[in-house]
């Protein structure tokens, strides 16, 4: 599944690379200079510290995600909301949240975060048993707070820099490092699933796995309230980029 996703990412990038990138704003021949330009305001400190050398590409990807949302994902989410009752949707979210505890767990270990890894293990065991395979989340009620760790943060703890800003297809705002982290976490998960082979005896393991990945994608989109271009603000791209990096910084503090 994940190798397919990565293939899709690479192909989309190649298409966008060929479609050309835009340059800096300079006056082209025949253009009338505007009354105000940015050069007047170069004495102020820059606010955004996010490096974004592939902005033209990222903006195209941003638009691509908007179209995917509009024509595919959001209609599916709307159908999902209509067809599946609220308590079941919460169960689905809990179930995938519980699976992600595995990712948090091994990344806590890689970062030598003892307490967090124990809490996460406790949560996983509690929710997988009392919480009936992760459909419910009694661990939170017992005071075990959900932690969030992934390979991106492990790389960070190892001193790897974020790299430039990168808008990924479907997944949206990322950095080169978080995209790499995502790929590694996906690979680990694929390896675990292969080793356990939970659907090996069903006769249609690929179909079941595809269904599960699909459901997880729908669940992810269902829980994320962000909508591309919903602010109607002409500079939304920059606001999103800024908020993404600030949020990243704040969660790192925790």
């Amino acid at each position, binding site marked *: 599944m994940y190798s397919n996703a990565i293939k899709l990412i690479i192909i989309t990038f190649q298409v966008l690379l060929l479609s*050309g*990138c*835009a*340059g*800096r*704003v300079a*006056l*082209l021949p*025949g*253009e*009338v*200079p*505007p*009354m*105000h*330009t*940015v050069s*007047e*305001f170069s*004495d*102020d*400190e*820059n*606010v*955004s510290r996010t490096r974004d050398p592939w*902005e*033209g*590409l990222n*903006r*195209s990807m941003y*638009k691509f995600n*908007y179209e995917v949302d509009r024509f595919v994902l959001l209609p599916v989410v709307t159908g999902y909301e209509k067809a599946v009752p609220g308590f079941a949707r919460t169960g689905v979210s809990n179930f995938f949240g519980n699976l992600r505890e595995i990712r948090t767990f091994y990344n806590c270990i890689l970062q030598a975060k003892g307490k967090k890894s124990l809490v996460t293990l406790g949560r996983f065991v509690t929710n997988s048993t009392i919480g009936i395979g992760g459909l419910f989340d009694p661990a939170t009620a017992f005071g075990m707070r959900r932690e969030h760790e992934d390979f991106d943060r492990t790389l960070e703890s190892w001193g790897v820099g974020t790299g430039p800003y990168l808008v990924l297809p479907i997944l949206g705002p990322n950095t080169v490092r978080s995209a790499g982290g995502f790929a590694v976490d996906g690979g680990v998960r694929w390896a675990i699933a292969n080793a356990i082979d939970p659907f090996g005896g069903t006769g249609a393991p690929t179909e079941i796995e595809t269904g599960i990945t699909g459901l997880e994608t729908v669940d992810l989109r269902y829980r994320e309230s962000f909508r*591309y*271009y919903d*602010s*109607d*603000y*002409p*500079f939304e*791209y*920059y606001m999103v980029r800024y908020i993404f990096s*600030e949020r990243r*910084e*704040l969660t790192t*503090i925790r």
Partner: protein
Amino acid sequence: MKIARSVLIVFLLLMPAFAWADDAVYRYPIDDSYAATILGTPQNLRPDTRVEVPVKTMVLETDQKKPEIFFYDRGLRYTVAFQDRKAPLIFLIAGTGGSSKSAKIVALITNLYHAGFHVIALPSPTFSNFIINASTTHVPGNLPEDANDLYRVMEQIWSQSKGRIDVTDFSLAGYSLGGTEAAFIARLDEERKVFDFRRVLMLNPAVSLYTSASRIEGLLERIPGGPRRIGAFYNRVMEKSTEYYRKGDFVAIDDDFLFAAYKAQILNRDEAGGMIAVSFRISSAGMIFASDVMTHGGYVVPKNRELKNSDLLEDYFWTCLHLSFLDYFNEYFIPYLQNRRPGLTKEELLEALSLKSIESYLASSAKIGVITNEDDFILAPGELDYLRRVFGPRLKVYPRGGHLGNLEYRDNMAFLIDRLRSSTW
């Protein structure tokens, strides 16, 4: 005895007058006008409105030809919450740069729906989506024209909606610049009579657009280095806040965090004021850019350039953030209007963009009321007295709350709803 009594009398006479007025019973908790504006009302002091509100975003399709850069824009977006029975309908108008889903509008929709109104909320004419789709000139700020555009849009939305809802009568409310616009719309409605508004409420309105914009822009004069250094100023405020967040045990950037930061006085008064002005600049940057692109005005974008989606806009963003509303006004807005009406002076124009231009109507119309605060800093000295003179008993002034900080406070909301329901002020 006698001495004690005269001491007491002198003491009473020396007490400031406001201590005897509303203040004695008004319990909105934030004294500082800038802090109130930023923080709003603590959750536990808001009205209890735990009802499911059927909020829907609607699109009014317009036939504007749009530049490629606004490809995502598919029409004017407005927000509704309709009752399933016969009820009064209220139109809401957002403040400067506000969409029909801005936080204040959502709060008003929730409370008014809860109080039994059908609600239709519109973005501000200074909001890019409105500039692109609904503004005849694409140059916002000319209040009589903006009111005209709003009225036309309201008529179109009403003709789309009337088959679906049962309406007893119409009211209108707006906050901030939207409050000022509501007054102009009310006067227009007296001629056109499409809605024949029963009640019109102006919430923390500007008396004069130019004066209020100057007051907010003036807050940037007090940051280190002045308005040209808003980037540096913003970074420093963010560093301070991040530092505070790092030290405390906060779960998220939420109300709890903001109130704790306020109590710990993380920002001084000048910094709080500066942040209000920065957020105003963020709004006006969108307005300036959208207007310039739509009119090919050559203000920040070369006149004859057609922007494409993959074009980088960061330089325009940075430029627009550093232009004040007054720059827009003096360098772009006035020349545009003078071009259309040669001989128009700035003084005449400023007069036309003030409540003073429709003063006699406002003074005589019993349906219009104003709610504002003693410490609303968008009003210049003397403007509150002006409102008192014009509106008399139809003006309600709270002792504190800054600019709209107390809008959601339960006393305020109860009063607002009560005024909308009653037939006399």
